């Protein structure tokens, strides 16, 4: 592609400007480009960008036509501005060195006060609470705190906790950058089993409180319909975070390389959307109404799931899949995808390298967008009834493209992982659909919901049994040397395949007849 071609096409211009922004963030996060001493004038570093931004806005407002399209030098300015803005945005997410953070108060037992920031994760033997507005030893400090507390007293969103605890700095373990993952969410310290916990109520966002209590009702109903561990598993699949699964089961999930479906990563939501869309489009509703129904369902889903950042991201990804069918042209989807990426990174630039859930979700969705239609045509020997073929092909695509990320981050290859994923993932959309149908049916007529739930329990039973059986195999998970090298090789191989096949991928349209 020649430069003049990019200059000539507004959509390509937009694409390349968005890419420049993302690359800016990438470069900043890899190189850590700004030394902390810069932080004093960091808030001013936007200033030199101002002229560029003004020109950019001017460019956006003027309708591009053949006569007044921007010239090459202009585009280079935009690119540079966008790139620098990416760097600036990342740097802004750094904690300024002159602030006292909660990480400065670690390794001694102190009195801590903080308010519960969002939904509390109830595990089988503990609660995971994220606190903000921290006051440590009577001094207000910057940053959030992750607290692992006993199951009682029960804590929920909006509460204010006072306790004494020995705070700790998060450390990476087994080569997995746990500390960076937490930092990407603003969590700078952790506390295990605080003492003398006192809970009082504080002020909270009424909207979030309503959303969370609605979610609690929905999961409560799910847990009534599905007995344990299926209730936890299914509500985790639907709304992210199967925190309340037993530790043994969670271990089995990570040993078999299936932990990603529990990680609220959005991979499962995207998989489900693909299968659901296929059903809706083939249903008597027809294409237009089917897409509208899908959009409405997605909107309801985001609120039912508590509208946490992870859920909103998963929702955006699934929304892209719906949009693809509305737009129809793959080439434009590239822009939409880039725009979604840029917006998400604008909100939290740390997602790009530090949040594995984001990476998995983004990669899986992009792969589904562009490669799934092609792969689906390769496996025509599988029956298409009930969307089985769609389920299998979409799972295959997601598995292949997320593999390098999993190997890179967890430094171990689960030998059983490809098999376990291939066998269990296709069940997932059906399980999610059954759970949703059971939920809706139970609102109309409880016994009907319970009967539908039996099918769901059977499906969940099979998935969980497969996971435990695979997980119990001695060779299930093998730590590998040079995991980064191997991950890179796989990624490069995938890239080569994509590059040589790009035309067939870009021109593939979904067969919706």
């Amino acid at each position, binding site marked *: 592609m020649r430069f003049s071609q990019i200059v000539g096409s507004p959509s390509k211009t937009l694409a390349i400007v968005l890419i420049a922004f993302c690359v800016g963030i990438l470069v900043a996060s890899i190189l850590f480009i700004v030394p902390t001493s810069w932080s004093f004038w960091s808030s001013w570093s936007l200033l030199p960008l101002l002229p560029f931004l003004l020109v950019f806005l001017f460019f956006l407002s003027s309708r591009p036509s053949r006569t007044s399209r921007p010239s090459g030098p202009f585009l280079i300015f935009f690119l540079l501005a966008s790139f620098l803005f990416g760097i600036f945005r990342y740097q802004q997410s750094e904690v300024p060195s002159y602030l006292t953070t909660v990480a400065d108060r670690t390794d001694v037992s102190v009195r801590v006060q903080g308010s519960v920031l969002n939904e509390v994760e109830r595990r*089988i*033997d503990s609660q995971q609470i994220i606190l903000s507005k921290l006051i440590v030893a009577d001094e207000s400090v910057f940053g959030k705190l992750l607290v692992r507390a*006993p*199951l*009682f*007293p*029960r804590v929920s969103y909006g509460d204010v906790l006072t306790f004494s605890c020995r705070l700790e700095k998060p450390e990476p373990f087994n080569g997995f950058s746990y500390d960076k993952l937490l930092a990407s969410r603003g969590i700078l310290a952790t506390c295990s089993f605080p003492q003398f*916990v006192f809970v009082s109520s504080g002020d909270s966002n009424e909207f979030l409180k309503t959303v969370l209590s609605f979610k609690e009702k929905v999961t409560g109903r799910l*847990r*009534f319909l*599905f*007995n*344990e*561990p*299926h209730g936890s598993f299914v509500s985790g699949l639907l709304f992210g975070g199967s925190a*309340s699964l*037993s530790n043994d*089961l969670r271990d089995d999930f990570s040993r078999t390389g299936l932990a990603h479906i529990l990680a609220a990563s959005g991979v499962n939501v995207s998989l489900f959307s693909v299968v659901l869309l296929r059903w809706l489009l083939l249903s008597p509703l027809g294409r237009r109404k089917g897409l509208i129904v899908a959009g409405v369902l997605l909107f309801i889903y985001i609120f039912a799931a508590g509208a946490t950042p992870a859920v909103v991201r998963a929702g955006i990804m699934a929304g892209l899949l719906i949009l693809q069918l509305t737009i129809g042209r793959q080439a434009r989807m590239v822009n939409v995808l880039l725009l979604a990426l840029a917006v998400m990174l604008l909100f939290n630039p740390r997602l790009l390298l530090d949040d594995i859930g984001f990476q998995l979700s983004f990669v899986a969705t992009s792969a589904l967008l562009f490669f799934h239609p092609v792969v689906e045509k390769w496996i025509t020997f599988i*029956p298409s*009834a*009930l969307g089985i073929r769609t389920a299998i092909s979409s799972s295959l695509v997601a598995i292949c493209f997320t593999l390098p990320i999993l190997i890179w981050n967890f430094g171990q290859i689960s030998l059983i992982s490809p098999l376990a994923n291939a066998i269990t993932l296709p069940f997932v959309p059906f399980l999610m659909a059954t759970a949703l149908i059971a939920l809706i049916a139970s609102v109309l007529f409880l016994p009907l919901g*319970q009967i539908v*739930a*039996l*099918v769901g*329990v*059977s*499906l969940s*039973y*099979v998935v*969980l*049994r497969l996971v*435990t059986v695979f997980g119990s195999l001695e060779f299930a998970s093998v730590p590998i040397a040079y995991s980064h090298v191997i991950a890179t090789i796989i990624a490069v191989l995938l890239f080569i395949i994509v590059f040589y096949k790009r035309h067939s991928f870009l021109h593939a349209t979904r067969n919706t*007849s």
Partner: protein
Amino acid sequence: MRRVTPHKQSHKLFVVLRLFIAGVILFLLAYTAQFARIQTPGLKVWFFDIGQGDAIFIETPNGQQILIDGGPGDLILQKLSSVMWPWDHSIDAIVITHPDADHITGLVSVLERYQVKTIYETGVRGGTPMIQALEQAIINEQSQNKIVRGGQTFNWDGVQVFVRWPSEEAIQTQKDRNNTSVVLKLVYGSTSILLTGDAEETIEEEIGFSVGDIDVLKVGHHGSKTSTSVQLLKSISPEVAVIPVGADNSFGHPHPIILERLKQVGAQIFRTDLDGDILLVSDSVSYKISPAFLPF
């Protein structure tokens, strides 16, 4: 619209048939083992492997369900759903031996999820957040509450229950909650079981001789050396000892001395940390006890 040829239609029917068969197979896969577990005739006593804590589930010959303690967390819910039908949301009775976290934490969730008809407890309370949560859950449940004292007897569908402890005096004077534990002797035909909660040696001395011969002993306090005295073992001479204990627990339970004592009286030992879930089945004449596989 695409025209559906008769050939295509029969193909579709075939696919639906196959899916239906797949569904049935799925259902059988999931429930056959469960059916076998639930339909075993006789008295069933499950000693659940729920980590460092106690949770014992009893199903009487006619299907009454009694849960004694709930373990240290929500794992009990998984265990219950492996031995109960998914549509079964009621439990006939819960026994709270004493309000320590490793015995009652799971009960809060059980009370929230299941309709419990009767709660047997000693009435002992304490100031921990855990106990307050349990108290609230009991109030919300609105079940029939019975205060248990030594000397009472109950009949659970043909299973005779003799309460051996606590005495009213112990409730008033004992500082240690372990020593207010409910101690039950269950008798079904010729099978007798002693469930000791966390009662320690001093309590064992008081009740030891009145208990008589016992087939199966639930070892007190997870095999801690403060329980299971030589005198008790001599007077009850158990054939089988079950130790509910968590793998790699920080207390070092069960204590080697206790294991040695049990061996010396000739008791066969089952441990939940090594054997997993343990099932006793009695047909009132003889009993069988062995590790039993629960899927989750």
